């Protein structure tokens, strides 16, 4: 059966002429990455059975100094094989969606041959590097008869069959819409000694958990996709050719360079729209009922391209495809693949709610962190998700306004940066885990907020502390130095320690380890409070002297100014949280004067005393809201006479709504 499938696939492709390497149009003159894992895949989609039949030729290069005697592969689709997989046991849901109607998916490697024709399929063994779940089949090891020596390569041909699940976790189908991600046997990453945290060379190939995403090596991808004729296909990379087949199908050949994944989509209903930004061809595949919203995808993608090009570095690929998922397959939305992203829009939801823009900006931003830096999303998810979330808030703020970048609807205004912050500051237990936690080890419900939001908030705080120029200089250096090289947290922090101290004249110490220790590796919270303002009347100055002078009847007292009142004021600031950060305190007096105090934030409280002829009318800790990570801004200030208008305004609104509610219930009565 397996062999007949391979034969049929081969026969199906015999009527076509696959492109040879020489006929590909190269993307880059020189390789951008080490090109360790290079794939040539021919795959056929059976839409009625939701099946994929594929032949994969993988050339893997051993760039380490180790002798590698086995290979490890991800078989991600087996996460959806049954209820016993690690993914399904971990909750089996992603972003609130679960597998509908038990429409499982899976992948089977039917043969695995070396260049000399030896079939290693029988040597395949499922392994479980993260847990003891023997039922999980998302990682395999393949012992090699002939080990791969350092700097040598091995070529394998794998036949595989896969069934796509009903979409709920990024990949699968929804009626005749297909989003095909993590669909082929994907080799893991072999890390030699000294690479990232590795002290002894070995495979980094984690199981698929609900919280985890992906980690793979860069390479070349040449993929021939055969689908029924009416289907429109979008994929990673550049389309090389499209050829009709005698059986009514067609085969599309895509080529991608210096990417670490390949995803594709197919649907007969797409509206295919094109635009360009500089030399980047932007293709949007829209659902027909939302075709009028394509402009939102184009505009936000261009805004993101422009911003990241200016502030981080160039986007090197000539193409970007944006996929608008079908209704009933919205679980495919909001995901990134190299040069292809899935967005999200809904019919009838206009631009008052910037869902389409937000998702596009976010998913495109991943091209830099997930796509080019390619950190390990299993072990350090924040280094992609959180850094990207930080840039998402910057782009959305610049493009759509500080207070209106998420929503601007009948007076309801919400900004992306503040919503990102409030998701973290509103956590029931923000101390539940440090950000630097392996993705599958986060307590349930905390992964997203800590990885995305808390990271973005501490990066925003850092930017405000050190200044935008220092931040941009650091991030540009980090990106340029580490793209295509799988950086880790240590590399990220090292760049900050290199760039920031000289740029800030060592105002924050010789390095920023103290900062990252608290916000990245610690679980403390930050909360500064303007605790109290006390003012007492003092004796009028000079009263005793004047009285004495008056009593003495001295004529020298004539014309002297009357005694002035003095006030003793004390402003007390407290640190309620564990995180210690330098803060500014602004004190304003009733004569219009102001004093700015600096506090290193280390003690639990500090008091500032003033002896003046003016009273303190207002005091605020962190008046510029540098510390975005402060969980409560409302306790940062005190004013002598708080204005009553705001509270009466909302009281009037509440009263009005109550009256209407009671009137409505009265109608029922």
């Amino acid at each position: 059966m397996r062999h007949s499938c391979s034969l049929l696939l081969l026969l199906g492709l015999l009527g076509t002429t696959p492109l040879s390497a020489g006929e590909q149009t190269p993307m880059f003159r020189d390789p951008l990455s080490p090109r360790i894992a290079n794939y040539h895949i021919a795959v056929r989609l059976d839409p009625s059975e939701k099946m994929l039949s594929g032949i994969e030729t993988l050339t893997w290069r051993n760039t380490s100094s180790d002798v590698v005697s086995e290979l490890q592969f991800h078989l991600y689709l087996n996460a959806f094989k049954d209820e016993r997989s690690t993914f399904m046991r971990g909750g089996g849901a992603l972003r609130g969606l679960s597998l509908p109607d038990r429409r499982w998916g899976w992948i089977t490697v039917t043969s695995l041959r070396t260049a000399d024709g030896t079939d290693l399929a029988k040597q395949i063994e499922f392994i479980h590097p993260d847990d003891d779940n023997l039922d999980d089949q998302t990682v395999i090891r393949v012992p090699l008869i002939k080990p791969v020596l350092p700097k040598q390569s091995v070529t394998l041909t794998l036949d595989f069959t896969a069934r796509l699940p009903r979409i709920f976790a990024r990949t699968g189908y929804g009626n005749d819409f297909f989003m095909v991600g993590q669909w082929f046997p994907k080799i893991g990453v072999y890390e030699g000694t000294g690479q990232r945290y590795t002290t002894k060379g070995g495979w980094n190939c984690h199981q698929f958990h609900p919280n985890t995403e992906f980690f793979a090596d860069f390479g070349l991808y040449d993929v021939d996709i055969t689908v029924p004729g009416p289907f429109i296909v979008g994929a990673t990379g550049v389309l090389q050719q499209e050829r009709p087949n005698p059986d009514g199908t067609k085969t599309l050949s895509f080529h991608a360079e210096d990417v670490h994944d390949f995803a594709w989509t197919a649907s007969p209903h797409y509206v295919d729209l094109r635009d360009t930004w500089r030399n980047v061809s932007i293709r949007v595949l829209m659902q027909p009922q939302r075709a009028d919203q394509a402009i939102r995808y184009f505009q936000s993608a261009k805004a993101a391209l422009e911003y990241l090009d200016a502030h981080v570095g160039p986007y090197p690929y000539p193409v970007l495809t944006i996929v608008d998922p079908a209704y009933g397959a919205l679980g495919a939305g909001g995901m990134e693949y190299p040069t292809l992203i899935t967005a999200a829009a809904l019919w009838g939801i206009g631009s008052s709610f910037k869902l389409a823009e937000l998702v596009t900006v976010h998913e495109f931003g991943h091209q830099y962190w997930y796509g080019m830096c390619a950190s390990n999303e299993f072990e350090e998810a924040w280094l992609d998700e959180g850094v990207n979330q930080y840039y998402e808030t910057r782009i959305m703020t610049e493009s759509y306004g500080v207070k209106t970048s998420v929503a601007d609807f009948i007076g309801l205004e919400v900004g992306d940066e503040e919503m990102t912050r409030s998701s973290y500051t509103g956590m029931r237990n923000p101390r539940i885990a440090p950000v630097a936690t392996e993705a599958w080890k986060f307590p349930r419900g905390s992964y997203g907020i800590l990885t995305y939001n808390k990271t973005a908030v501490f990066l925003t705080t850092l930017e405000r502390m050190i200044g935008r120029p220092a931040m941009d200089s650091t991030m540009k250096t980090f990106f340029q130095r580490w793209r295509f090289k799988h950086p880790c947290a240590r590399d990220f922090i090292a760049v900050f320690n290199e760039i920031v101290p000289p740029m800030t004249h060592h105002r924050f110490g010789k390095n920023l380890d103290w900062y990252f220790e608290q916000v990245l590796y610690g679980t403390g919270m930050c909360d500064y409070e303007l605790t109290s303002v006390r003012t007492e009347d003092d004796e009028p100055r000079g009263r005793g002297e004047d009285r004495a002078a008056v009593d003495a009847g001295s004529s020298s007292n004539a014309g002297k100014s009357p005694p002035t009142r003095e006030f003793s004021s004390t402003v007390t600031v407290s640190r309620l949280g564990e995180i210690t950060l330098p803060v500014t305190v602004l004190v304003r007096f009733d004569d219009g004067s102001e004093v700015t105090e600096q506090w290193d934030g280390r003690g639990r409280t500090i008091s500032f005393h003033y002896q003046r002829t003016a009273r303190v009318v207002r005091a605020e800790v962190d008046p510029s809201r540098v510390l975005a990570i402060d969980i409560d801004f409302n306790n940062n200030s005190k004013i002598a006479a708080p204005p009553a208008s705001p509270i009466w305004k909302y009281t009037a609104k509440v009263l009005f709504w109550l009256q209407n509610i009671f009137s409505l219930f009265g109608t029922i009565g």
Partner: protein
Amino acid sequence: MAFMRAFVTGVRRANSALRLALLLYAVNLLLAIPIALGFRATVAVAFGRSTSPESLIQRFDYTVVQDFMDHHGREIEPLFRQLVGFAFVSMLLSTFLAGGTLSTLRDQNGGFSAETFFRDCGKYFARFFRLFLIFGILLILLAVVLSAGLGAALTQMIDNADSEVGAFAAFIGVGLAFVLPAMLLMMAADYAKIITVTNDARSVTGAARDAFRFILKNFFSAVGLQLTLLVLLFLLVAVYWGIEGFIGMTSPLSIAVVFLIQQLFMISRMWIRVTFFSGEMMLYEAQKPQPVRFVGWDDSPLISPA
């Protein structure tokens, strides 16, 4: 058209009973004030002397509001429980006040006497409360039956829709399938009250039955009147939104002005409620079945001597 005549006459009669609308408004306001003031006190204590509320004057400030809810949300939770309790009280009060409202509208001399009003509230309350229970149970039964019958169908329609347009249409369709019968039930409840007051009917089940019969017999007039009154209500809402959006609440003066406009809106809303009753009463009086006049022969024992 009968419903337009009923509407016009209903408006006129409601205009002649403006003090009635003011009384209903006063009750509505007194019911809402305790919770509103409770809200004010809670928020004022929570914010203390913080400067954060200053940013709420000019516009909605998501950060201030969200930080407040995150750290003080529990303090306003009791207000929500009070709201539920007061909503139930408002239903009972509405049932109580309906008697006086309808009797004032029935008596065409245009005068309003608080004493007569409350006396008639008490007179009809027992019957109206029983009508409230009957129609409440019918409403719940409607919801249960439709949920059981249409719930699964709605889920399937949404799942099988080609796009969210189809899903939205299915949702609207099912929504209307509930809203339209519910509207008819509430109309019947009104007419049952009107029949009780107009005919001094003692049997509430009889009044309910007669109300359903009346609506069925005068379906287009009854529904036409109802829709006309609803259009009037929506127009009022649109006018209010336009005015409030134009003025804003960004200074103490504008807050006071908008507050007054809000209260004028509520008075108008009470007037519309009275107009609902008045229009329905006019339609009923115009269209109600007339008693058959018996004409007998001279020596019939049924004719009493003059």
